[in-house]
């Protein structure tokens, strides 16, 4: 039974990942938000969406939700650090360019 539930969970995660990917790709086509794009908001959203997908893959596909705290924490720290630095660079520099 556990195996069956897991498969269902994997399918749901896969569906959400595809939806986020298509959503992120369509966001770049939206011309209604040029003000956000100019201030780097759209870029921050896209980076954050990528980070969310990475966390989902790590948690469910790499099975880190069952892993010890140190391993899960290391992965989440890597994702959070990389995302914060990237978003920070965009946020800081979008005021200039």
């Amino acid at each position, binding site marked *: 039974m556990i195996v069956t539930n897991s*498969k269902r969970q994997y399918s749901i995660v896969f569906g959400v990942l595809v939806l986020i990917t298509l959503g992120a790709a369509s966001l770049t086509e939206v011309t209604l938000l040029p003000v956000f794009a100019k201030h780097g908001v759209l870029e921050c959203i896209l980076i954050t969406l990528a980070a969310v997908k990475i966390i989902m893959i790590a948690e469910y*596909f790499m099975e880190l939700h069952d892993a010890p705290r140190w391993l899960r924490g290391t992965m989440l720290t890597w994702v959070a650090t990389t995302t914060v*630095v990237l978003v920070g660079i965009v946020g800081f520099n979008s005021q200039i360019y």
Partner: protein
Amino acid sequence: MQHIDTMNTERRVPVEPDFWLLIFGDLTVFSVMFIAFMLRRFESAETHAVFSMGAESLNQPIGLTNTLILLTSSYAVVLALSHYRSGDLRRMIRSIGIAIVCGLGFVCLKIVEYTEKINQGITVTEDRFFELYFTFTGIHLLHVVIGICLLTTVAYRTFVKKHDAFSTPGFIEGVACYWHMIDLLWLMLFSLFYLLG
């Protein structure tokens, strides 16, 4: 079944702990690359414009298709691992086969993309954007090729029922984890190169 229950309920380290050193080493190298990309992008108004034009000149439908292909392959790998744990080796091999086909599809589309660019006279020396584009996606492509070789090894060893170091649960979980790492790295590469333009 009791073994599977235990694996699903107890907190355990997926894959050999040593293997995570390789994973985190690779992730760290790539995160440095992501940050280097972003710093280069905002180096000056000129580089910002070059990066925006570079991103717009990329084939976005191919990039999106490659992302969906890798997500599908990751899904296939996770199902393969699930079949392996339940002892259904036939379905496991079929799922790995799907992942391998997806991986090969990714490689083919990347070659098409590179060829398209080279035919337009755009190479690694074109500008700073394409210097990073060819380098980063090239390194990632190398990871994909290695991943395909590992998946093929696992599928073959399972098919011929050969019991050696390449058919242990630890190795199979390691290959699955490595493939997911390739997928998650591409997700960030796709966002940086294709979407941020």
